[in-house]
C-alpha cells in the first residue's frame, strides 16, 4: 500500500495532467452536418456502398429524432452545425511501421503514458490508439493474428473483414436506437474491432486509447467486439482530452456479442476533460454501450470508472438472451465541481436461469450531481432469473447531489430480484481518525474513497486498478477542506 499511497499523493497535487494539446498537422472537414458530410466521411474512408447507405439511413432517421431530455443533466442546446465531424492526423497514408508515424503524435501518446513502441510496451497489453477520429496504430497485431484474433481499427475491419462487420454492425445497438447512437451511426469515423475465434482465450489485454486533440471536433467512434463460442477476451478502454474552454461532444457506440460459453470483460477508465472548477468546458460524454449475451452460458461484464467529462450519460447494458447467461455491471462514477453524471445499466433478462449483478458506487463532491439510473427487466420466458443490485452513494460536502432511479419490470413470477441502496457522507470522524494516525487529509480521503470503491476496483485488471486509484485522487482533489 505504501507505494500506491505515494503515487496517490503525487497525483493529488496535480491538476488534470492530460490537458495539453499537441501540435499535429490535422486534416479536418468544414463544420456542420448534412448528407454531403456523411457521404464525404464515408468517401474519405473508401467505404463500400452498403456502409455509405447504412450511414445515410441513420442520418435520415436522426433528423426525425429529438435529443432526449429525461436524463437528470442540464446543458445548453448543442449546435450540431457547429461541430467538425471528421479530423485526422496528417498525412493520411497507410502506415506499416512506427517509423512512419508523425513523431509529434508518438510524443503525445508517450506523454499520456502509452508508448506505442512495442518493445517498450508492458507485456500483455495490445493497444489501439485513436486520436481525434482516426486509429493511429495498433500494436501486437501480428502476434494476435497467429491465434486468429482480429484486433484492428474499425476502418481496417471494414476493408479486411467486411463480412464480419456487415453481419454484426448495428446488431446490438441499431442505428435507430437513440438520438446519439443514430448520430454516431451516421458520422462515426473510426474505432476498434475485435474478433475472437471459437475456443480461443485471448492471451493479453486488448486496449484502446481514445484521445481528442483537435478544437471544435466531436469524437464518434465505434467499438465492436465479437467473441465466438467458448472464447474469452478482456478489453480495456481509456480516454483523455485537452483542456479547452468550450464543450466537446463525444458520442460513441460500443457493441459486444458473446456466443455460447464465451466471456467478454470490458473495462473503461473514462477521464475525458471534466471542465474547470467553475464548470467551463469539458466533454459531453453521451455514449451507448450494450452487450448481447447471445449464447448459452455466455457472459458479459462491464466495469467502468467514470471520473472525467463535464456530463456523462451512459448505461452499459446486457441483453441476457442465452439461457444461463450472466451480465455484470461494476461502476464507480465520480463527480466534482460542476460535473454531472447520469449513468447506470440495463439488465434485460430474456433467457432462462439468467443472472445479473449490479454494483454501483457514486461519489459526489463540490457542486456536482450524480445519478444512478438502472433498469432490471425480467421477460416472460426468463424463468428463474436472478438479479442483485447494490447502489451506494457517497457525498462529500453539502452542495452536491446524489440520486438513484432504479426501474424494475418483472414479467415472470419466478424471478428473484434484490436491491440494496445506501447513501452516506464522508465522515469527519473517519477523517479525524486517519489524520490522527498521521495521514494527510488527502491521503485520508483517498483511503476512505478507495475502500468504498474496492468491490469495483477488484474487477479491474491490475494496471488499470492502479490508474483508477490515481484518477480518483485527482478527481476529488480539494473536495473537502
Amino acid at each position: 500500500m505504501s507505494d500506491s499511497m505515494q503515487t496517490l499523493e503525487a497525483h493529488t497535487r496535480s491538476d488534470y495532467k492530460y490537458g495539453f494539446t499537441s501540435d499535429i498537422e490535422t486534416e479536418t472537414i468544414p463544420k456542420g452536418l448534412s448528407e454531403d458530410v456523411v457521404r464525404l466521411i464515408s468517401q474519405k474512408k473508401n467505404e463500400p456502398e452498403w456502409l455509405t447507405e447504412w450511414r445515410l439511413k441513420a442520418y435520415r432517421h436522426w433528423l426525425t429524432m429529438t435529443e432526449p431530455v429525461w436524463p437528470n443533466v442540464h446543458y445548453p442546446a448543442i449546435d450540431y452545425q457547429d461541430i467538425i465531424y471528421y479530423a485526422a492526423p496528417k498525412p493520411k497514408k497507410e502506415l506499416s511501421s512506427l517509423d512512419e508515424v508523425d513523431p509529434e503524435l508518438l510524443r503525445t501518446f508517450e506523454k499520456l503514458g502509452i508508448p506505442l513502441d512495442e518493445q517498450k510496451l508492458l507485456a500483455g497489453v495490445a493497444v489501439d490508439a485513436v486520436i481525434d477520429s482516426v486509429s493511429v496504430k495498433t500494436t501486437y497485431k501480428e502476434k494476435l493474428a497467429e491465434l486468429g484474433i482480429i484486433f484492428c481499427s474499425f476502418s481496417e475491419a471494414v476493408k479486411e473483414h467486411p463480412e464480419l462487420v456487415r453481419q454484426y454492425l448495428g446488431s446490438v445497438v441499431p442505428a435507430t436506437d437513440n438520438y446519439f447512437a443514430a448520430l454516431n451511426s451516421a458520422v462515426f469515423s473510426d474505432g476498434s474491432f475485435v474478433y475472437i475465434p471459437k475456443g480461443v482465450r485471448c492471451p493479453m489485454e486488448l486496449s484502446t486509447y481514445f484521445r481528442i486533440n483537435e478544437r471544435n471536433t466531436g469524437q464518434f467512434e465505434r467499438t465492436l467486439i465479437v467473441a465466438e463460442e467458448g472464447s474469452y477476451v478482456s478489453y480495456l478502454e481509456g480516454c483523455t482530452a485537452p483542456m479547452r474552454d468550450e464543450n466537446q461532444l463525444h458520442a460513441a457506440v460500443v457493441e459486444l456479442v458473446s456466443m455460447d460459453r464465451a466471456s467478454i470483460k470490458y473495462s473503461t477508465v473514462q477521464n475525458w476533460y471534466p471542465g474547470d472548477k467553475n464548470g467551463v468546458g469539458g466533454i459531453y460524454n453521451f455514449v451507448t454501450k450494450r452487450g448481447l449475451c447471445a449464447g448459452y452460458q455466455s457472459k458479459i461484464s462491464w466495469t467502468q470508472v467514470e471520473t472525467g467529462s463535464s456530463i456523462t450519460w451512459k448505461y452499459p447494458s446486457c441483453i441476457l438472451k442465452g439461457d444461463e447467461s450472466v451480465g455484470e455491471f461494476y461502476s464507480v462514477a465520480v463527480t466534482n465541481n460542476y460535473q454531472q453524471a447520469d449513468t447506470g445499466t440495463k439488465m434485460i433478462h430474456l433467457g432462462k436461469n439468467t443472472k445479473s449483478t449490479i454494483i454501483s458506487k457514486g461519489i459526489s463532491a463540490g457542486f456536482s450531481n450524480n445519478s444512478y439510473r438502472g433498469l432490471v427487466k425480467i421477460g416472460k420466458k426468463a424463468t428463474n432469473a436472478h438479479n442483485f443490485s447494490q447502489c451506494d452513494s457517497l457525498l462529500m460536502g453539502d452542495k452536491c447531489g446524489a440520486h438513484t432511479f432504479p426501474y424494475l419490470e418483472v414479467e415472470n413470477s419466478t424471478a428473484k430480484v434484490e436491491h440494496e441502496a445506501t447513501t452516506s457522507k464522508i465522515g469527519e470522524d473517519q477523517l479525524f481518525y486517519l489524520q490522527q494516525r498521521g495521514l494527510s487529509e488527502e491521503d485520508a480521503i483517498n483511503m476512505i474513497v478507495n475502500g468504498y470503491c474496492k468491490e469495483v476496483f477488484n474487477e479491474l485488471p491490475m494496471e488499470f486498478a492502479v490508474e483508477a486509484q490515481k484518477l480518483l485522487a485527482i478527481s476529488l482533489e480539494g473536495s473537502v477542506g
Partner: protein
Amino acid sequence: MLHINNLKVSVNEKTILNGIDLHVNPGEVHAIMGPNGSGKSTLANVLAGREDYEIEGGSIFFDGKDLLEMEVDERAHAGIFLAFQYPVEIPGVSNATFLKSIVNAVRKANDQPELNAPQLLKLLREKIDLLGMDQKLLQRSLNEGFSGGEKKRNEMLQMALLEPRLGILDETDSGLDIDALRIVADAVNQLRSPERSFIVVTHYQRLLNYIVPDVVHVLYNGRIVKSGDKSLALLLEEKGYDWVKEEANAIAQ
C-alpha cells in the same frame, strides 16, 4: 514535555474547559478522572486537534512546539497518539493496509526511511505477538464488525506500531470486560518508558489497578479541582465524586 496553561475551550459558545493547567514530564502517567460531562474527553480531543472545538484562550506546548498551531496529522507526526473511545469503521480498507500506511506516514514525516513490505510485515507480526492479538484481524476491514474489545486492541496495536511520545487513552476502558481491560493495560505497561508519557482519561478507578498512574487529576466543571497520587483514585472509588464537587463548589463561592 507537555505544558497546558490556562486552557479555555468552548463548543457552540458553551464553555467546556475553563482554565486547565497540566504539566506532564517524560515517563509520567497522568490519570484524568471526573464525573460525566466534566470535560475529560474534550481535553483528549483538543490535544489531538479535533476541529469541533473553539480555543478561547491559553496555550499548549509539546516538546517546545505550539500544539495549537499544528494540524491534526502534524501532531501525530510529533508523537501524539489518541486511542479513541469509539474507533470508527472504514469499510473496504484492510486493517493491514491501514497499519502499514500509518507507520510509513509517520516515519516519512520524521525523515526516517520508509519500511518496505517485508519489513512492515515483520513489524506487524512482532507487535501483534506482543499484544497477544489474532493475526486474522489484519485481513479484515478497518474496525468493521470488530467487537468492542477487538477495536480497543486494534487501537493498542496502532499505538505499539507508532511508538508515540505521548499516548492519550480516551475512556479506553469503557465497555470492556476484565480480560480486555488487562490486554489494554498490558499494552500500555509494555510501552511505558522513561521517554514516553501517558494521559489516561477514565471515569472509573478500575483501569488504574492495572495502569498505575504517577499523578491523578480530578476534572470538574472544566477545571482540574484536585490532584494527587494513585491513592486519590482509590478514594474516588470509595466515596464517589460528590465530595470533590462540594469542595470545588465551596471554593468557587
